[in-house]
């Protein structure tokens, strides 16, 4: 059984180059089927691994190089349920994106499929690996494929700029990670995560370990788009093809948060045990900044893909907070929320794709009232908006409730207000778009009219006349939304995640099962029940979303009635925020340097 462990990575990794070799000679149905077969096979294998890991987590040693007396010689995949589950989720989203892409592009070559499969191999390997250096290499593999996919429409100007910004920012993050890996190797002589963790245990974390941690976290938080390392995300999402955006927002960005959680619990939890309060304060702060800035920027957008991108930043902020709480329940909440949010956001991007496909623009004001031709999309977007606002009792609500419970448990009650704000404003922004596009509510002229040009397609992705939407482009997002509605309600789903998250945060048990082959079973926990308060908070965030949408649509008179003392500073803050997102790579790297230095400095002071 464990011998199939490497196959979910290998299958797409080999199928991708094969497609490059034969794709241009083969008929289109062949490329489509080969890519779909590889993606589905990999997803199935990931699911098998997840089922196996649900019994007990297990390592797989490449080439049979098992550890001797607790010392690693070879390279491992260390497969536990959270990693394998996330790999399955990524693989399924790739399948959905490929299905959606069947009819999305008219002219398509094997190259697109090949890049998607390489991207998939990177993501799946990233989730499964137990080796720190391989984690970084899989990060680079998925990143390189992602840069190329962002610039897939290489004849247009936007995608070029977006891909350049994306590639440079993430590469700088990647180099910081290489140095972090080197420093940890210098200290411990190991690259296996369990072995590094065991070697760091029992020693106070000195400056070298803290610098290594900050460099590693800095790299992964660049991928996770934590403020102020987030600038690339909106640019890349605004211009990447829709099936690619689905993967970026649905799972790639969240993998950055996953890596931070994995590294903290498997590497640093022992040596930083005395400093939990400090670690929590620093990274919750980062998460809150991300959630708030992402939410505000989301509401200020009129370019729908950019709006959804900033909404992802806001949610990632909440995920960072959840991981930074340093509790098993926090991890469980993030896990549940990532699935609910990923499915919802993927569906919303696909809906945006239908609008773009049909009307060749994705500007909210350009599209005003035109959505009536595709009412089903309006229904799906409205459901998606409500799910982002954590409407009870669906999956996103379950995740948010677990986050709230775990925040209260460590005395961060005020975080609940941040969660409510983030959910309400991002859900509200989507509902505002629904109101304007599908009901023609609100004024026809928006602020910053020059922005509409950016949202129009330069050349069409689709050559045939667009009076019809292919059914597949409606079926796939519909299915994803059904998943987002239903998964959290499955009996045993949320308590299950709870148990495996509790296992995830057992630092010493990880070393035991990776290095010594111990069979560790997840702890039996009392089922966490969702209190009436949580329902109250989520009803509040749903109402908040409806209110925010109403304000965005009909609030112009209200905003005019505001006293100048509030309205003028408000408008100038919005201008400053827009100005910060300048699209200039030099500015982005300045922010990156400042952000990582600041976090590093604070960590060196607080954690010693």
């Amino acid at each position, binding site marked *: 059984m464990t011998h199939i462990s490497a196959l979910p990575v290998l299958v797409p990794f080999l199928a991708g180059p094969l497609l490059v070799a034969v794709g241009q000679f083969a008929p289109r149905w062949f490329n489509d089927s080969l890519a779909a077969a590889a993606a589905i096979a990999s997803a199935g294998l990931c699911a098998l691994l997840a089922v196996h890991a649900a019994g007990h987590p297990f390592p797989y040693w490449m080439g049979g190089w098992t550890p001797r007396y607790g010392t690693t010689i070879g390279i491992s995949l260390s497969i536990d349920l959270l990693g394998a589950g996330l790999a399955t989720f990524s693989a399924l989203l790739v399948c959905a994106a490929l299905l959606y892409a069947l009819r999305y592009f008219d002219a398509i070559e094997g190259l697109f499929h090949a890049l998607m499969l390489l991207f998939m191999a990177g993501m799946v390997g990233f989730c499964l690996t137990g080796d720190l*250096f391989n984690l970084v*290499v899989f990060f*680079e593999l998925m990143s*390189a494929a992602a*840069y*190329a996919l962002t*610039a897939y429409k*290489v*004849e*247009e*100007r*936007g995608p*070029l*700029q*977006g*891909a*350049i*910004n994306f*590639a*440079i920012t993430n*590469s*700088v993050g*990647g*180099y910081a990670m*290489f*140095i972090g*890996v*080197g*420093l940890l*190797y*210098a200290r411990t002589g190991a*690259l296996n995560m369990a072995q590094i963790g065991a070697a760091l245990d029992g020693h106070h974390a000195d400056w070298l370990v803290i610098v290594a941690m900050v460099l590693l976290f800095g790299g992964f938080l660049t991928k996770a788009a934590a403020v102020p390392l987030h600038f690339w995300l*909106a*640019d890349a999402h*605004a*211009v990447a093809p829709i099936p690619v955006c689905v993967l970026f927002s649905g799972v790639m960005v969240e993998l950055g948060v996953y890596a931070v959680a994995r590294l903290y619990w498997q590497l640093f939890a022992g040596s930083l045990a005395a400093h939990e309060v400090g670690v929590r304060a620093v990274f919750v702060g980062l998460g809150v900044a991300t959630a708030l800035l992402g939410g505000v920027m989301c509401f200020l957008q009129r370019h729908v893909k*950019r709006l959804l991108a900033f909404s992802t930043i806001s949610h990632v902020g909440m995920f960072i907070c959840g991981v930074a709480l340093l509790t098993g329940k926090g991890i469980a909440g993030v896990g549940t929320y990532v699935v609910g949010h990923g499915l919802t956001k993927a569906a919303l991007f696909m809906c945006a794709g239908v609008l773009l496909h049909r009307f060749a623009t994705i500007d909210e004001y350009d599209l005003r009232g035109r959505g009536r031709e595709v009412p089903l999309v309006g229904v799906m977007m409205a459901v998606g908006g409500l799910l982002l606002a954590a409407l009870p009792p669906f999956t996103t609500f379950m995740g948010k409730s677990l986050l709230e419970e775990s925040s209260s448990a460590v005395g961060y009650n005020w975080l609940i207000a941040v969660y409510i704000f983030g959910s309400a404003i991002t859900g509200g922004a989507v509902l505002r778009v629904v109101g304007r596009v599908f009901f023609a509510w609100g004024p026809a002229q928006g602020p910053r009219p020059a922005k509409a040009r*950016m949202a129009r397609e330069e050349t069409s992705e689709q050559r045939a006349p667009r009076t019809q939407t292919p059914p597949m482009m409606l079926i796939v997002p519909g299915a994803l939304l059904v998943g987002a509605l239903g998964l959290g309600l499955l009996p045993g789903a949320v308590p299950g995640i709870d148990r495996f998250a509790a296992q995830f945060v057992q630092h010493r048990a990880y070393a035991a099962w990776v290095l010594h082959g111990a069979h560790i079973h997840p702890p039996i926990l009392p089922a966490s029940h969702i209190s009436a308060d949580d329902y109250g908070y989520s009803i509040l965030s749903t109402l908040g979303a409806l209110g925010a949408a109403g304000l965005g649509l009909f609030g112009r008179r209200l905003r005019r009635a505001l006293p100048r003392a509030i309205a003028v500073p408000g408008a100038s803050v919005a201008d400053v925020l*827009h*100005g*910060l*997102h*300048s*699209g*200039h*790579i*030099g500015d982005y*790297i*300045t922010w990156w*340097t400042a952000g990582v230095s600041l976090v590093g400095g604070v960590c060196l002071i607080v954690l010693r």
Partner: protein
Amino acid sequence: MGFFPYFVAAWLFVIGLWGVISSRNLVRTVLCLVVVQASTYLVLLGIGYRAGAKAPIVADIPTTSRLVDPVVQVLVLTDIVIEATVAALLLALVVQAHKRFGSVNPDDLRPLRD
């Protein structure tokens, strides 16, 4: 050797970042990115260095010889492959940007200004 390679690495990292920040030409930006990456080679090789040790090719030397750490050298090789991929991809994008924008000055790339 002591701390010397790490000082140089830190210098390369910082000066490379400054180059990326201040470049008026995207080709220069990409080259500065390569400078940032060069710092990672130095860190890794510096960690594996042992005074007076031989290259880690164990076929034709006594097994008792002092060797430098081969693991970090393998890491550097991987690192170089990644660098080549990313730099090639970025330079291709820059060439394409020159065709579309008629400029490789990042100040002239405006479509994504928020």
